[in-house]
């Protein structure tokens, strides 16, 4: 029982009312798990960035050995992820994607580098006062990509060149990632 003074009946009724159950709709759990699975996939790919950054700036044979370790690890990771078999094991470079969308509830990045988000591989962006961003390892080369806002709206990156193959009627962008190890 509350230990305040007079007006106990009023406050007891307040508490009784506020203690009524509140339920979110049944899609809430699904939406949380979509985010969690994306984090899970992102965490697995982030391991590749750590490997790539460790091998830079090493001279001579050590670099060659480290590069071969990357090749082995990369191939190994490709085997364990048959849904993203890449040809050639291109070096990975961290790329930051940014979208200003103050009214958005969620922003994800999907593109050639993550099989367009299929199999829960989309990159989930973090919101900082309406500026959404995510940094992820992307293989050197050319890629098409787009932002997926609120799970349904396709948005091209306003700061990037357009991808001109708009066969599907929805905008996307082009990304060219340089191989910084060369």
């Amino acid at each position: 029982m509350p230990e305040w003074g007079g007006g106990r009946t009023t406050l007891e009724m307040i508490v009784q009312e506020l203690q009524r159950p509140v339920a979110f709709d049944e899609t809430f759990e699904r939406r949380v798990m979509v985010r969690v699975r994306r984090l899970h996939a992102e965490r697995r790919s982030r391991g590749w960035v750590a490997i790539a950054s460790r091998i830079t700036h090493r001279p001579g044979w050590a670099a060659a050995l480290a590069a071969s370790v990357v090749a082995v690890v990369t191939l190994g990771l490709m085997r364990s992820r048959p849904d993203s078999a890449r040809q050639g094991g291109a070096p990975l470079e961290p790329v930051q994607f940014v979208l200003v969308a103050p009214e958005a509830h969620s922003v994800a990045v999907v593109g050639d580098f993550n099989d367009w988000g299929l199999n829960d591989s989309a990159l989930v962006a973090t919101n900082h006062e309406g500026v959404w961003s995510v940094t992820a390892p992307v293989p050197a080369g050319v890629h098409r990509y787009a932002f997926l806002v609120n799970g349904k709206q396709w948005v091209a990156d306003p700061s990037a060149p357009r991808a001109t193959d708009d066969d599907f009627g929805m905008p996307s962008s082009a990304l060219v990632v340089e191989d910084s190890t060369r």
Partner: protein
Amino acid sequence: MNRSARAVSALILAAVAFAPAHAQDPRLGNPLDAPSRVAINALIDSARAQGIPTEPLIQKMNQGVAMGVDGPRIVAAVRTLTREMATAHRALGTVATADEIQAAASAVHAGVPAVELGKIKKQSGLRRSLTLPFTVLADIVSRGVPVEAGVNAIRSLVGAGAKDTDINTFQRNVSGDIEKGAPPAAAAETRAKAVPTKPDSAKPEQL
């Protein structure tokens, strides 16, 4: 070959030996109707036989699936991309990388004649890669820069030895100018002149 190099070679060979033998890409089992899957498989096999990169075709399929597009439309898009990459491949020749072919295909899609891309490739000399210049060419043409003006701008940038950072800046400036209302051709021509010419890339008549 010294011991270290032998060890490295052995490691790489071991990795390659354990790489899977060529088999159908498991991503081709994605949720597409059976006739579309069969058609896309055939396009990919044909592309492979012609030496055309197949990864962009698989990603085009993934893009369509992710965007909820129906199977026949995805097949049409993959077929178009295959055709454009074949055109780009023929124009650029055997020295072109997979990324250059893909970027050149996007320029072809935007309306740039493949022969112009081939000329830029021939004139690029020691430049490492034309992936970004072709990507930017496709972009500015899609924003309304006439093909001739776009090709001339990119050719002059490549000929001047412009780095990728310069070409990225050029793209941002041109797109920004066009958004502010500048005639696209004027924007491209003006901004191409802003990129500094490197002394070692000066034409012989300037020496």
